[in-house]
């Protein structure tokens, strides 16, 4: 059976603060192992979002994308992802919002509720370890995700768009 909630971390652990998403996902996994509703969550990760990840969203109630960003407010931002229907420009990677557009086009239905947790990073160079400041942000993000796991309504915790 498909878990109703998908938590999808995006990032490359060999590129400094780009590792924040995968590292946080591991912490979330450890946290969920002690929870009764562990089976309600599926955790996935990849270097970057791609078109086929729309298929991972099928039959979910909610999707949480976790990413690291340079321009996001510290320590993190949490907001609802919305399909824009607007021009999608991308390289080999898609933004979460674009993935929602792809989902809608492929399945002919509205995508599940989707949210973005973007953790503020500082440096994304190859071979670097995550910066201490960013790891602090990640620790605060973990506390926040624990709230989300127990919450029934995520919109109340999201920054209005």
């Amino acid at each position, binding site marked *: 059976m498909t878990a109703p909630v998908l938590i999808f971390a995006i990032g490359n652990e060999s590129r400094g603060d780009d590792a924040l998403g995968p590292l946080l996902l591991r912490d979330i996994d450890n946290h969920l192992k002690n929870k009764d509703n562990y089976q309600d969550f599926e955790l996935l990760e990849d*270097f970057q979002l*791609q078109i*086929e990840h729309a298929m991972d969203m099928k039959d979910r109630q909610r999707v949480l994308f976790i990413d690291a960003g340079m321009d996001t407010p510290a320590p993190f931002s949490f907001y609802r992802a919305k399909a824009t229907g*607007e*021009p999608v420009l991308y390289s080999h*990677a898609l933004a979460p919002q674009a993935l929602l557009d792809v989902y809608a086009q492929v399945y002919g239905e509205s995508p599940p509720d989707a949210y973005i947790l973007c953790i503020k990073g500082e440096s994304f160079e190859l*071979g670097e370890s995550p910066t201490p400041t960013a790891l602090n942000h990640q620790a605060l993000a973990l506390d926040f995700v624990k709230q989300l796991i127990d919450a029934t309504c995520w919109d109340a915790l999201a920054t209005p768009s």
Partner: protein
Amino acid sequence: MSVSLETAANPENLRRVAIDPVSRVEGHGKVTILLDDKNRIHQVRLHIVEFRGFEKFIQGRPYWEVPVMVQRLCGICPVSHHLAASKALDAIVGAKHLTPTADKMRRLMHYGQILQSHALHFFHLCSPDLLFGFDSDISKRNIVGVAEKYPETAKRGILLRKFGQEVIRHTAGKRIHGTGSVPGGVNKSLSIAERDELLRDIYQMVSWSREAVHMVKELHHKNPELYNSFGAFRANYMSMVGYDGSLDLYHGRLRGRDENGNMMFDGVDYNDYTDLIGEEVKNWSYMKFPYLKSLGKEKGWYRVGPLSRVQNCDFISTPLAEIERREFMAYSGVMPMHAPLGYHWARMIEMLHAAEMIKDLLHDDDITGSELMTTGERGFEGVGVIEAPRGTLIHHYRVDENDLVTMCNLIVSTTHNNQAMNEAVRRVAQQYLHGHEITEGLLNHIEVAIRAFDPCLSCATHALGKMPLEVEVVGVDGIQLSTLSRSGDGTFCAQ
């Protein structure tokens, strides 16, 4: 072969247009164009961030970590690096001949990679340009636009890519950071359940791949003037071919032909690649310019990737792809096809071949075998070469007696194609931009030429809001006259 437009005679008197970064390619690329006051082109350069950092990153690591670590070099073709590194490090553990199960599992993984990468590239990165036109409405010129107008095409692209990823998952052990291939062999074979799961869908994938070839072939036949001439330039070409001359993307020897299709070298052992290939440094680019030493720096540059491979081999071992190869060769005529848009046709032939190979391997009992590893006399240096989706990929390592990597040299496909991509953008600039007012649609012509090569310009990193396109027009006096910008969310702005 021309290197005109590489360096302008009087750059200080020209205005500069920069496409920075090039969109819909992996990583960060930048094109700079120098124009005079009548919009005549004097210089065009494609700049690409180099991969040098990766080599230093690997040094000092235990060799057995390398096949997993190198997957972090690229978010698009991690499997190519995984396999090239494994092949190179086979020599360190003395594995001269892999077991049949190991060889076929690696090949299965590789063809899964080719299938998913080619599907992504054609359906989702390039089909918007090909189906709607290079200077069509930018708001529709993307995959969502394709999904809206050609929903079946877009859906097939996604499902083909997803299938390729599933092949990788079952052969590499997991979706990312796979550990399936190790020095000396593999650490898993396919279970019966995994094999049967993939067999359920493979016939559909073969069928869709065949139709994809027909689709791009039809585009060529409908508009030969465009497809045969857009950015066309003559070039040498190189690829690995099987020992029997067949298209073999996993193993073989190096073969090169000149711009007329005549054989320049054949049967070259890739362990001797340093005798064959030199790498030139130019002061305006971070990326090196490989060349064939026998021809020298000026004339020795060459092209790699699907267009080279399909024309360089003698035949394709799978029947449907071979039919398509013959038709492709017949269309080209006596001379090789040099037009960059021909890459798409060749790419789809390779995708069909990959699907057929996956089908054949799934029906081979060795794929579920239990003999996974081989060892032999310990070595201290190894070279591994595969034909990655974008072209020839070379990994070269030296390892000390403590098992630590002391030297790493990588020549990736995009580096091989560096000069060729520069030539393509110069031709397009001459054909379409010369003497015209620069518009977004015209600049996209430049990007179409680059995307035909499917360059992977490094970096599996990304951060939200970090993918803008910015074009600057600067007057002869150095004052900025106008800018065109495109933000990561797709907003386009002219000032």
